[in-house]
């Protein structure tokens, strides 16, 4: 498309359908401890499935 380049699709809606397992890292345990960015965390389920595929 000439006027639109999509950087990311509708991933959030898809994630809601299968999400909420709760096995992800607690958001404040990484590097911040005084602020909150949640979007830079990893989804453990996706990590696991990636590992499984490459194994």
């Amino acid at each position, binding site marked *: 498309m000439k006027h639109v380049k999509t950087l*990311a699709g509708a991933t959030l809606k898809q994630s809601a359908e299968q999400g909420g397992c709760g096995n992800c890292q607690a958001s404040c345990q990484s590097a*911040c401890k005084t602020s909150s960015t949640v979007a830079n965390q990893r*989804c453990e389920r996706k990590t696991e499935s990636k590992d499984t595929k490459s194994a």
Partner: protein
Amino acid sequence: MGKSVVLDVNSGAVHLVSEVAYVLLDHISPPLTENLSQTVLEQLAGKFAPEELAQAYAELYKLYNGDELYSGDGYDLFADKLVPSPVKALCLNVAHQCNLRCAYCFAGDGDYGDSSLMDAQTGKKAIDYLIAHSHGRESLEVDFFGGEPLLAIETVKSVVDYARGLENETGKRFRFTITTNGLALNDEITDYINQEMSNVVLSLDGRKEVNDRVRRRVDGSGSFESILPKFRKLVGERDGEYYLRGTFTRHNLDFAQDVFELYRLGFDQVSIEPVVAAPKQPYALTERELPEVFAEYEHLAELMLKDSREGGTLNFFHYMLDLAQGPCAIKRLRGCGSGNEYLAVTPEGDVYPCHQFVGMPEWKMGSVYDGSLDAEKKARFAACTVYHKPECRDCWAKYYCSGGCNANNYSYRGDILSPHIISCDMEKKRLECAIALKAAQLDL
């Protein structure tokens, strides 16, 4: 970076758009019809050619039909159903003592007013407590924090041994992290951390003069020269994750220089955070500093783009944004998890919603000694979603910060549901920069 970005908040879709499409979006609203209205065509006729407008509109309409533009919000249904979760992470304040006297420390002189150290028995009780309150969760996290946790390194070791010894019996898997100023590091402790800790957060503020102005030793001298070689050795010998984590204040609004100084010194995983401080403090960040802070975040993104194009490896914590593989929408509804799935434990075994609530008696939630956990407070934190924070509901960044830091909200505004607006403004600027950087790196 000159990018026009459209974020469809509810679907998570991110689009880079042309100037025509960007302007057009100010003149249209859902529900969209298949063809651009004559009225809008006439309104913009002096600015753009009709065929350009029609083409841009057609592309936007395609996104709209694909639910990637003006998509509806259905997550409030999930938010209302969120119940208190099992506990999955503890911040163990093993030392309410510190061997530094950092001017901006939110824990006073690192002692939270009591100067105590956690003993091994309390640490083990905390592990039992975590296991008991973690029904259904397999992966558990424990962060050793303080004060300075290396002042209680024997307790750290006892806790790690104890927890590892319970893994098979309980089916739990522990992930340990530690946050240290590094002053007490020696070869043996360095080896231990690199072996046992899945992540290590190393505190240093960047340039020597910036660091030593605020991160001082007990005798008032600077700490930079003593700590730097220890951090270099630890990171040099490390395979696992780490962050060099600094703080910027009103005194170093040119903090991109500090990020790059840490990078130059050999650290490519860097986090520099805005100071948490009452506005009356001379180093505090207030509304007045925001224009300069915003410009510096943009400057940092430009420097990082140049670095990545030259093959560099610098990673800045707040510009990490995996737009396709990030956390699920459910996680994003309530974010940090404090007081619900994440708790802090004091050296005496008292339980608080998180490390920043420690020392506020009204927020005590229980004790690892009697296993108690205040269900009413827990339910209150469990309901801390972006839909329960009135100022977050309509914010475009709500699924990226998830309503911000509850402790900051309470400290600055006296209410965990009222976001600290200056923190929000900085978070939004960081997100804008992160998305722009991502687009530029992909050469879009």
